């Protein structure tokens, strides 16, 4: 009681809190631009010359490139063929917008420590509203440095800009580090020298403006607005107004995706699965409730069994089809835990979710029987995979390759790539040397010659043969030689 009395609450001001946002401090935007995001998102080896390509205006062009490629003269915007000609060992990869978005979202989560208001609306850029955070982080320059450090520590090249409007901050960040601009009034003098091309205008329009002698943004600002709009449309005016803040551009706020994390202490340390599994089931039930509240499904989860004095045991569970049934999770985890040797007794359990996705109702058909919905089937495959390992299940697939050992190792079915000549139902994992004693080699030969370009060349004459037991074999030898025969497959019978 004495303690409670001693604490006095601060007296609130008598006047009501002000409600109009205009009366609050004007926003200040920190833009963090990642010029090499396309490269970093793919995680390619940096020491090699790498170019990320994208299809633009009907041609495959270089979007971004690694420093090694820059040193060889590869520039963004040139066609990929040109780049290959300049730099023979160039590693080319397609741009992956999804990976870029994921990387940016990860960075945004990291930047939530500086401000709750982050937007991803500008390309390859994070926009942070930082007016309220300046006091905490020791001023604009210190805050900018801290944010840059956080991004560099995550392995990204970053440029930053600080300005009272999002578009101006983005412009500053893209054009290289400049002094932070804190007031709207100072924007014109700082940005005036920037070239028109920087202002995210349409390429053709920027070209027309440059040909008219308007090189910098300052030249645009000096033009009469009505004349500019009549001659070039309203777009350049909109861009200019976005930069100065007289035409605000609404931004979407980034929200960190929900995560589930729960822990449970055991009453006593135990090694027996029967003793701690009910607690795990309880955690899973909590997880299911969490998912149902958000109408989400999880594509996997991770549990951690903590032991005294030893490193914790982690079990990661991935699902073929995202789900939220605690019963299904429990069945899979039991399969896994039953065949794990624990390094010691378990003291506590923790469960955390992998990525969550919104729940989508499976599309059902009035006339299809319920058994063939495929959902149970995926559960069955999950169970098989949990016990036998992720590599145990394979689906035969076809790849357009003449080499038999590769033709059956595709990832997706492409039925037009089936060879016309008969193929054996059984293929040996690798050809086996064969002694021809007692084997009758049938006439009729198929020559397969391929792969000289990718380091696994094949030059073989395939024949059918019958051995003493009656099995029909698929054998080959190198053409033109009397070399040894190899067994590569088994036919059922005369095809």
């Amino acid at each position, binding site marked *: 009681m004495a303690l409670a009395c001693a604490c006095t609450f601060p007296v609130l001001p008598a006047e009501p809190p002000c409600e109009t946002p205009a009366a609050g401090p004007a926003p200040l935007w920190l833009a963090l631009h990642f010029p090499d995001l396309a490269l970093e998102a793919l995680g390619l080896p940096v020491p090699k010359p790498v170019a990320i390509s994208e299809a633009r205006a009907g041609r495959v062009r270089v979007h971004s490139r690694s420093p090694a490629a820059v040193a060889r003269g590869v520039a963004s915007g040139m066609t990929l063929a040109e780049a290959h000609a300049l730099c023979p060992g160039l590693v080319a990869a397609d741009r992956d917008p999804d990976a870029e978005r994921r990387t940016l979202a990860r960075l945004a989560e990291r930047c939530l420590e500086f401000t709750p208001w982050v937007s991803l609306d500008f390309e390859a850029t994070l926009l942070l509203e930082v007016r309220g955070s300046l006091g905490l982080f020791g001023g604009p320059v210190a805050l900018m440095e801290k944010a840059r450090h956080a991004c560099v520590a995550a392995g990204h090249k970053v440029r930053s800009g600080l300005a009272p409007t999002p578009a101006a901050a983005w412009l500053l960040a893209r054009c290289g580090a400049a002094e932070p601009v804190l007031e709207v009034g100072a924007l014109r003098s700082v940005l005036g020298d920037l070239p028109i091309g920087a202002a995210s205008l349409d390429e053709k329009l920027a070209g027309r403006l440059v040909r008219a002698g308007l090189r910098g943004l300052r030249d645009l600002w000096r033009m009469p607005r009505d004349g500019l709009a009549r001659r070039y449309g309203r777009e350049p005016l909109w861009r200019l107004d976005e930069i100065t803040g007289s035409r605000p551009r609404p931004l979407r706020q980034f929200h960190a995706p929900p995560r589930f994390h729960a822990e449970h202490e055991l009453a006593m340390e135990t090694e027996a699965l029967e003793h701690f599994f009910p607690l795990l089931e309880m955690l899973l039930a909590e997880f299911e409730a969490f998912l149902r509240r958000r109408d989400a499904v999880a594509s996997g989860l991770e549990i951690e069994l903590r032991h005294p004095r030893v490193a914790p045991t982690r079990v990661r569970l991935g699902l073929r089809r995202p789900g939220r049934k605690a019963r299904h999770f429990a069945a899979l985890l039991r399969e896994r835990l039953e065949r794990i040797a624990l390094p010691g007794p378990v003291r506590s359990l923790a469960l955390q979710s992998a990525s969550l996705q919104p729940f989508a109702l499976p599309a059902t058909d009035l006339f299809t029987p319920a058994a063939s919905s495929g959902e*149970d089937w995926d559960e069955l495959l999950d169970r098989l995979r949990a016990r*036998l390992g992720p590599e145990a299940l394979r689906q035969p697939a076809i790849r357009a390759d003449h080499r038999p050992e590769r033709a*059956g190792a595709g990832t997706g079915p492409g039925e037009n790539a089936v060879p016309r000549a008969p193929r054996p*139902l*059984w293929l040996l994992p690798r050809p086996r040397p064969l002694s021809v004693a007692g084997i009758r080699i049938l006439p009729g030969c198929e020559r397969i010659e391929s792969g000289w370009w990718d380091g696994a060349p094949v030059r073989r004459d395939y024949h059918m043969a019958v051995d003493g037991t009656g099995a*029909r074999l698929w054998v080959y030898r190198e053409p033109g030689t009397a070399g040894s025969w190899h067994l590569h497959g088994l036919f*059922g019978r005369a095809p």
Partner: protein
Amino acid sequence: MIETRRAPEEKANALDALLDRDPRIWRGRRPEYWRAPVIPSGHAALDAVLPGGGWPVGALTEIVAPVHGIGELRLLLPLMRCLGADGRRLIWVAPPFEPHAPALVQAGIEIGRTLVLAVADRRRDLGWALELLLRHPETGLVLAWPKVLPPVVWRRLQLAAGEGGTLGMLFSRAASGGTTAALRLGLEAREDGIDLRILKARGGFGGARVRLKL
């Protein structure tokens, strides 16, 4: 006491009804009473000697072939095509070699519904995986190459296949004595096909020989 008062013809009808109802009751050389579901094998000569005229559904079949590649897969291709067209799954469990996808497509099998399951530890996991697969209603056919399978596991798999209405084809090198398979076939290679001998058939008699040109 009640039965003795019944008319003799009524008793005979009850007996017939029971015999009709339960295919497990053995009736000697009366194969026309066999009512268990079958799927035609696609080989007319084979259908003629199989009880019911096809592969038994919801049961295990053991195929004894001394070597691989004498035609044991070609024998089953019509069945695989038929089940694939029904939208059911084909699973190859622990095959001795790799099933070659282009050859499967050439044979008209839908490889999108085909799965290959590798089992590293056969002694521990094979029976478990087979039971799970055979019990699932979406499975059509399970092809398996177990090296040894204890009799208890055979019986469990037989029950699982019955429950799921699936076909289990188990390949072995030599006829093992005490299997509970509904059908046991022995294959021998011939110059232009295979010699097929029915070693045991539920609801029929063993001993029939067929020569199939494949």
